């Protein structure tokens, strides 16, 4: 009996080792990109294209992570219905990284090794991606990230591709707005993780360059819900504008509390102020401003083109529209992946990574994506919006129509 069991176990081990075989076997080199000059096919011999997913699916960032995953699943289903990637159906393997860098790193390693992922939609949290840079470079699996910190792409990795906007690019638009507004004083409120601190530092530096006096910088800790002390200090500074950078959950709480305390000036978010935030902050969200490639919608018919198609498909699939633009980041990742695989005519990691940097006119949810700079950045600019009565409006148009002066008189 023991010998039979041992034999079964041995056979099982052999079979499992075969299934976990090398990433590429029968491969094809895209024209002009291989050092070896080999013309063999690079289509995977295994049956499926493994797309890894790793983002927070629990905790305070769960909403964003879940919607991102939903969007990825939607995109994958659509591609599979069209025949998959170079004939291979996509299979998603997802992990909850709990927005914890250590957990996220473990997930990335597993996806890159045991799970044999061809590509990964990586964490939305910049702090998680930063902790994985060496690992990503080691395993050479292309990782799409929705993190906004400039640090993600400034390290020169050839395997990290951003499917949202670098928050530094938003800063250029914000400073241009401040110049037209004639802003003289500003203050900041940020959370304490890497992306928010970097955003704050960039804001401070940009203000100094423009001659805008930064009156102060207040912080909140992870898990905080009461910002009374910080709001009180900000109110006492009496800045013309307040810039805030925080994960999605604290944003509406801060907006609500600073407005309740009586601040009437414009509030500037480092990224899109989501619909869910507008619902929580209510009318306090009026004159929250930001620069971003895209916004969230309450009605799919308010959108146009590819965004409208996506929103209608998402709503049909999940019964509601996404409230976080992190959904767009996930869907854009799948769009880029499809384009890259088509360009490369191959599904292996290196071919995908090499093909992405040739993409320059990909129509995506936030506009046109162009990766040819080689920095891993897809979006180069955003649009300035302000919130009023629950809707997003063109800020520069509002400014140029002379409304800011009337606004200043009203609040004074």
């Amino acid at each position, binding site marked *: 009996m023991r010998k039979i069991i041992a034999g079964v176990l041995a056979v099982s081990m052999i079979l499992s080792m075969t299934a976990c075989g090398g990433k590429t076997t029968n491969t094809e080199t895209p024209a002009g990109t291989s050092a070896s000059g080999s013309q063999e096919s690079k289509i995977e011999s295994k049956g499926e294209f493994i797309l890894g997913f790793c983002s927070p699916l629990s*905790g305070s960032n769960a*909403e964003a992570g879940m919607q991102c995953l939903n969007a990825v699943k939607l995109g994958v289903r659509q591609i599979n219905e069209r025949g998959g990637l170079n004939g291979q159906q996509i299979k998603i393997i997802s992990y909850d990284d709990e927005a914890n860098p250590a957990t996220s790193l473990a997930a990335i390693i597993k996806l890159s090794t045991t799970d044999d992922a061809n590509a990964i939609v990586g964490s939305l949290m910049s702090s998680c991606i930063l902790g994985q840079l060496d690992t990503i470079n080691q395993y050479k699996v292309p990782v799409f990230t929705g993190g906004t910190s400039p640090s993600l792409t400034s390290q020169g990795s050839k395997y990290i591709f951003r499917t949202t906007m670098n928050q530094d690019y938003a800063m250029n638009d914000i400073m241009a707005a401040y110049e037209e507004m004639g802003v003289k004083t500003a203050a900041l409120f940020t959370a304490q993780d890497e992306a928010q601190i970097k955003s704050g530092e960039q804001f401070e530096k940009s203000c100094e360059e423009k001659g805008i006096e930064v009156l102060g910088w207040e912080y909140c800790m992870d898990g905080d*819900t009461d910002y009374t002390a910080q709001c009180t200090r900000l109110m006492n500074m009496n800045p013309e504008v307040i810039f805030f950078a925080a994960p999605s959950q604290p944003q*509406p709480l801060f907006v609500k509390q600073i407005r309740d*305390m009586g601040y009437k000036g414009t509030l500037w978010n480092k990224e899109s102020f989501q619909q869910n935030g507008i619902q929580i902050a209510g009318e306090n969200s009026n004159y929250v401003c930001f620069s971003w490639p895209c916004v969230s919608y309450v009605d799919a018919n308010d959108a146009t083109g590819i965004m409208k198609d996506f929103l209608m498909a998402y709503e049909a699939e999940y019964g509601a529209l996404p409230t976080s633009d992190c959904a767009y980041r996930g869907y854009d990742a799948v769009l880029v992946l499809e384009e890259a695989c088509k360009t490369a005519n191959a599904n292996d990691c290196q071919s995908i990574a090499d093909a992405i940097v040739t993409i320059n006119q990909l129509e995506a949810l936030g506009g046109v994506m162009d990766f040819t700079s080689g920095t891993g950045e897809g979006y180069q600019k955003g649009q300035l919006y302000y919130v009023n009565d629950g809707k997003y409006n063109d800020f520069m148009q509002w400014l140029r129509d002379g409304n800011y002066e009337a606004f200043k008189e009203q609040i004074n």
Partner: protein
Amino acid sequence: MLITLFVSGIVLGCIYGIVALGYSLIYKASGLMSFAQGDLMTVGAYLGITFYSYMKLPFFISIILIGVIMFFLGMGIERGVIRRLRRKGVEPIYVVLATIAISFIIQNGCQKVWGPVMLNFPSIFKTSTIQLFGRNFQTESIFTVIASFTIMAILQFFMKKTKAGTAMRASAMDPIAAKACGINVNITTGLTWGCAGCTAALAGVLMGPLYGVFSTLGSQIGTKGFAAAVIGGYGNFVGSIVGGLILGLLETLTSGYISSNYRDIISYTVLILFLFIRPWGLFNERTIKN
């Protein structure tokens, strides 16, 4: 600025105090510690949204329903987990560990039931802000202060002046002697946990309009509530509120005059100092000796 910080500190302190009341109640009446109080508060907040916002029930009716549900939830935890562990004769530390596990189960359970999205708890009052001393404050903040002192007074009266409260304290001091006196120890202990559940739920309903509702709402507040209970005297109701007020004021004044970065450092340093210098808290609450 001082007035704003002071009032905000009082409000925050009262929230900590209500959570601390739950800790003290459980300890006073059963000699145990429960780390699930903060998360029971989260459940209360979610139930508040469900009844008040989704089902559009009047606020008063919602509170009663929440109280009843949380009472039975608290009793259920005691009966289903705590009592079984005690019957096995496990060390109290394992009961504490069980409450930590319950805490995580509640957090994930809330996420599964109500989703990971932060939910908006609509304002309870028609006037969203009121002016006090020339400053605007959310109306729910003032209500929180009144409610917390009211709950403290009710609990104090109940435990000291009523037969049921006396029975609860007797059960905790000496279960065998209490049984000998005809007190049903099991029921009184269950009642205690039920009351603690109600207290936590009320804190959640008060917090919801101030901070929104999400699955980890109660976890950090729970830790601070525990610290407040220790500072005031673990098991003392007046001490719970006073401890909460001290902690709340310490936090807001530190954030306002020094920096919010030092807020938790200073708060927990004060907790440690109390443990070293005055572990029985401000109100001399001695531990129950066997």
